[in-house]
């Protein structure tokens, strides 16, 4: 491998290709007049649409394609500003519909329905404006992910998802969530003139468990072997399998990935030319722009990010409650950006340090305190950029916090 070069897994390229093909096929079907299509937020309603047999694009996935994969945030930000709006990442999808000629991958077809979420005051409004731009229905669904605002996640919360999620959510809010989903399902049955297939829904939920078990097995393997067999870029790209999750094609792609990982491990293959030390990325971004500098200058590898730990949290024990109740519980609490969990993940990956994004890296933060108390080094960066300031912070961190300890 040349310096800076990374391997790309064939199974992950297949995931990338699958997503584009899926969108092309969906667009063609809708364009021909017979196809249906929906847009919803990631954790709100995807499984329900899948059970109805309706292809669905999740908002934050589309926004991440615009922002991270295609790096078109500045253009679409300007599109919104021209219309008097103040852009943010959640509104990128709206902007692609206002300026479809510039939309990635040929853009989205007109949806049959969009599910507006009241996760915060921006999201419902953006979804309503987006539906207006498409000329389709927007159905508001109440706030998801509320639980961590009402009750703090208990210690070790990341171990409770599968069968003890009830301990982390408000029972009244959970019951309300189930009622709201039942109401929306009834609305869709009428709107689509199609009964909801409860058996198919259970299949989807069970499929998610199967997919996430494969994910867990693959990532447990990746985390423990040296050298790292799967790059952060490929790990992040694999997260696309979380959209249309639980379907047969996604499970097959996940199984292919596990097979390829096993082979790479057997071959002792590494994804980076050198791996002098490992770092864990505690941010919501993709493979950061400065990673190449970190690798080439210092041999430092960012071996994983929070996404690798989030995906398995979608799995739920369906023997304890019905699939709708399990889905509602997951919608109310999936994960929390919280340092004790990130420390747990960093240690699982054998990282010596953690990278976070903080407005003012010079200030003492809880992330820094918790990470350093756990015996790991902490690098706080003000932004994900690849410039001299960031390089300087990386240099100082590596020299004083990583190399000195070796």
């Amino acid at each position, binding site marked *: 491998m040349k310096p800076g070069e990374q391997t790309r897994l064939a199974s992950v390229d297949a995931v990338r290709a699958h997503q584009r093909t899926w969108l092309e096929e969906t667009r063609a079907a809708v364009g021909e007049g017979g196809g249906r299509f929906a847009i919803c937020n990631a954790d709100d309603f995807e499984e329900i649409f899948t059970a109805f047999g309706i292809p669905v694009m999740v908002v934050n996935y589309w926004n991440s394609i615009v922002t991270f994969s295609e790096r078109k945030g500045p253009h679409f930000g300007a599109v919104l500003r021209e219309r008097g709006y103040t852009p943010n990442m959640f509104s990128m999808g709206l902007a692609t519909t206002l300026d479809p000629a510039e939309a990635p991958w040929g853009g989205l077809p007109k949806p049959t329905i969009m599910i507006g979420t009241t996760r915060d*005051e921006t999201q419902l409004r953006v979804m309503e404006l987006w539906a207006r731009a498409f000329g389709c229905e927007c159905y508001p669904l109440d706030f998801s992910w509320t639980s961590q605002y009402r009750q703090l996640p208990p210690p070790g919360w990341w171990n409770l998802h599968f069968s003890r999620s009830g301990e982390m959510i408000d029972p009244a809010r959970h019951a309300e969530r189930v009622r709201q989903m039942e109401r929306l399902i009834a609305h869709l049955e009428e709107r689509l003139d199609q009964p909801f297939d409860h058996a198919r829904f259970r299949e989807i939920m069970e499929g998610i468990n199967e997919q996430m078990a494969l994910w867990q097995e693959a990532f447990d393997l990746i985390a423990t072997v040296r050298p790292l067999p799967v790059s952060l870029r490929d790990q992040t790209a694999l997260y696309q399998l979380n959209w249309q999750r639980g379907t047969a094609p996604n499970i097959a792609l996940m199984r292919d990935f596990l097979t390829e990982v096993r082979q790479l491990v057997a071959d002792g293959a590494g994804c980076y030319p050198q791996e002098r030390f490992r770092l864990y990325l505690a941010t919501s971004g993709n493979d950061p722009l400065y990673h190449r500098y970190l690798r080439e200058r210092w041999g430092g590898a960012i071996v994983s990010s929070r996404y690798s730990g989030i995906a398995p949290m979608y799995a739920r024990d369906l023997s304890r409650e019905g699939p709708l109740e399990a889905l509602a519980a997951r919608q109310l609490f999936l994960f929390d950006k919280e340092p004790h969990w990130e420390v747990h993940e960093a240690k699982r990956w054998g990282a010596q340090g953690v990278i976070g994004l903080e*407005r003012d890296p010079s200030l003492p933060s809880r992330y820094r305190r918790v990470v350093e108390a756990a015996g790991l080094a902490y690098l706080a960066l003000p932004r994900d950029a690849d410039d001299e300031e960031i390089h300087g912070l990386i240099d100082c961190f590596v020299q004083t916090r990583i190399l000195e300890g070796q």
Partner: protein
Amino acid sequence: MTEGANGTGLDVFRRVYEDRNAPARAWKERGGKVVGYFCDNVPTELIHAAGFLPYRISGQPEADLMRVRDQIDALYQNDLATRPEFVASMLSQLLGSELAFLDYLIIPHNRHAIQAIYRELQEAAQENADLKLPPLHYMDKAWSPFSEPDGFNRNAVVGLRDALAAWRGRAIDDADIATSIEVAEATRSLLREINAARLDHPTKVSSSAALWAHAAAMLLPPDQFARAARAMLDELPGLPERNGPRLFLGGSPFDHDRLYALIDALGATVVTEDHCWGARTADDYALPQGAPLDRLAARFHAAPACSIRYSFEDTIDASVNRAVSADVDCAIHYVFAGDNTQSWETPDEVKALRERGIPTLHLAEQRYDCAPPEDIKAQISAFLATVPARDRRQPA
């Protein structure tokens, strides 16, 4: 002139506005307890029924935001801790000693930055043993227009009643709640009289005076407010006519009077507005008949959290209708930087008003403290100069 609580009505309201904690301090000196709360949809009737004084927390442009940076922002990475400055300034006062007189605090599930305070304060207290907080109560709300009125949101009102009962050490009965509802309706009725006077041709109620009156309704004991409000209404005939442009103010919630004072100084008058510190607080939700708690629950369910009502078009229509029915000559939409609620609604409100022939100035991503005042003044002055003149002694 009729005497209010202490001086004329307007004097009382102005003094309360200048020292918003004074009524609560006086209440406490008499042995009472004070319950702080955020926003305009907490059923304060229940607080009164428990025998406590409600105190609506407001922002302060001069608040020390370094406290928020050091004690709250330091808890989270930068994609979690986002809030408009007026919310930060409220949080700052809770982290400092300014609001140490609060015995209890209610945090409703309204805009995200408000909702997050419940968690932020608890985690800040975990990190900092010196931070003393009053007992907190989180008041959840289902926002969906499809949730059932007698379901989740009613239970949230029951939960608040029970929390207040626990704080005072005995149950709150329906008779107490019914009395509080009557008192609160009397307060709203007085505010509606003041708002009606604002719409007179010509108006005699200055922009600032109206803002002071609405805030006083949320800070004074009801009997003191009632005396001062009646005094203010008695004073109005003797006040000078305000014949400058009649103005509608949209956009972010103004919990300080700097913009209002500036508009008054330029000869224009805000005759109505669409934010939660002004005319909207007196909106009549026509409480249904029934058990007192059910009446409050019905209003809590119907009133939008912050200004976020479904649908978008309903929100725009409500705002525009407020302006149109006030027979305004022009409108200003002033939106604070970071106010995500308004930043998506305002462009459509501005467009709709302009389509109705109402000249509208859209000031986006503005500073909460309205600084530098000379810049704001210049922009508004230039805008007002474009507003067509007319005889404002008569409706258009």
